[in-house]
């Protein structure tokens, strides 16, 4: 199974390779099977293939991946919250910032590869066994009612990943009745990986390691010195 084409991931040396026939072929399978439901795509030659499908076609995309595209090995399923964190990266947490800070406007959510219209996106991956090929699938999750279809009919392993995504992002998966919390206690409130969920440890106590580069000798800032070593990692 060690076909030579599989080694094309080592493309670091050859960035001039502008086409990627294997991934183009994989994309054309999805386009042929799903038609209009393939909303956008992105190919990084030798590195990856991203396909964004319409929300309604999310379960169908899994089916195409497993059957027609021959990517039947389930990799992972998760989500991305594209809203910028209202807390920033907690650089200012030692200053007097209001808590909770004002939420960023919904339009501040800028999606990455393959674009998108919603704040939350589901992200999943499936691979072709014996090769380096894998497809990264995305779909928008409606803002008002975060529900997408389930993948468990195609990939049994998606069940746990959907439970994790449900508790972390508050996304529900239609058709998956078992969305108990995977990690958090049953009575836990909130969805930790949503950007508006505060990292409380950082809110109550500023992070001393935020000063990444030490000041030059002699030009030291006393305030930085004072906060050093205040917290164990």
């Amino acid at each position, binding site marked *: 199974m060690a076909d030579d084409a599989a080694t094309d991931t080592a493309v670091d040396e050859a960035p001039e390779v502008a086409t990627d026939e294997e991934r183009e072929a994989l994309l054309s399978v999805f386009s042929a099977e799903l038609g209009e439901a393939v909303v956008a795509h992105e190919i990084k030659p030798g590195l990856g293939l991203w396909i964004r499908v319409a929300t309604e076609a999310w379960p169908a995309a899994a089916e195409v991946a497993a059957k027609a595209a021959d990517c039947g090995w*389930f990799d992972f399923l998760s989500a*991305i919250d594209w809203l910028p964190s209202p807390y920033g990266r907690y650089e200012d947490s030692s200053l007097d910032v209001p808590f909770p800070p004002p939420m960023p406007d919904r339009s501040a959510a800028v999606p990455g590869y393959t674009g998108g219209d919603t704040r939350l996106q589901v992200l999943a991956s499936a691979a072709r066994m014996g090769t380096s090929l894998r497809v990264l699938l995305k779909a928008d999750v409606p803002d008002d009612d975060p529900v997408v279809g389930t993948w468990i009919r195609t990939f*049994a392993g998606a069940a746990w990943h959907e439970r994790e995504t449900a508790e972390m992002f508050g996304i529900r998966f239609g058709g998956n009745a078992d969305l108990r919390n995977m990690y958090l206690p049953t009575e836990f409130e909130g969805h930790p990986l949503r950007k508006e969920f505060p990292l409380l440890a950082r809110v109550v106590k500023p992070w001393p390691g935020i000063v990444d580069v030490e000041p030059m000798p002699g030009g030291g800032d006393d305030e930085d010195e004072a906060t050093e070593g205040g917290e164990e990692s």
Partner: protein
Amino acid sequence: MTGTLTEAQQLAYANAQAADGRVNVDLETDEGMTLNMGPQHPATHGTLRVIAKLDGEQVVSADVMCGYMHRGYEKLCEVRSYPQINTLVNRIDWLGSFANEVPFILAAEQLMGVEAPPRAMWIRTLFFELSRIANLSLFIGDLALQLGAQTPAFYAFRDREFVLNQIESVTGGRFHPNFDRIGGLKDDLPKGWIADTKAAMSRLRAYCDEMEDLVYGNEIFQTRTRGIGIIPAGVAQSYGLSGANLRGSGVDWDLRRDANIGLAYDQLDWKVWTHPDGDSFSRSWVRLQEVREATKMVDQLCDGMPAGPIMAKVPRIIKVPEGEAYVVTENPLGQMGYYLVSKGDTGPFRVKIRTASFNNISVVPWVLRGVYVPDIIAILASLYFILGDIDK
């Protein structure tokens, strides 16, 4: 203390104790018995909880509860800088820590367009394999321990020490090296290290031979593992099993060979081991062969080490350009990957950590149906998970 309690208090205390006991084993007369294993159970080496519904000695259905050690790394990654995350991810699979760093660093390097020098890639490969040996050599002893043999566990701890010493003498850390850097490595190898490592590798090969005789050839071991906990390749595929759990089901797929991303594996002479049976024995057997194969790879890596720098030119403050990258490597426990989303900051916007054990253990409810109670232990041990790798 008990002497000072009133009778009513003693009764309340006894009732509370009895209530705790009922949580542990809940006897239901009509539908059989519910057996709770864990969260603290020797066979789960960590805090994994298995709840099995039994009919006599057979499991009717089983459920796994995890999260007792959830540390929220994906959230923490969003507030830390790239060098800081390197320290965090060391703690995911704590038996093969260095292997956790590699896919993360490679993902960041991919987005930055930085390429580590050949010598750095070579030493990365070397430490990747040393992590594999440190991790999987312990598995063999642990598996035997779960099946009732004490001695192999002590042998495993004794001989793993030779690998840990080699890791420590370079990185300073026995368990958490934190040695990989964006653009290269923290340090070069010290003098005399190569010779010591080769001596340690021949020691580890002797350990493998010893274990193959002592454990794998043992009749009791074979009875307890052969034909037990069979996972067909189709099931393994749909649950996303990887590593020896997948290769033990006869699938010939190893990312070190099939999707090598700049590491030195394509310059080595080695073999991917598979086993067609898909049972507990085959999974364990594949891991034993992988340890042996890794010692040979380390020998070759020691011999063919290229000269040159160990660090590429990178800015002092690391900022990763905007983009998304997904890098997966073949870690000791299976495929581990990081989906990295950067917005051009000093830290990532989102990191999805794809760990091997989470998928590997998600098959447990499927595979435990119909097995006998003692086999639960054997199957869990043969699937081999690290709690940090499940709970992240």
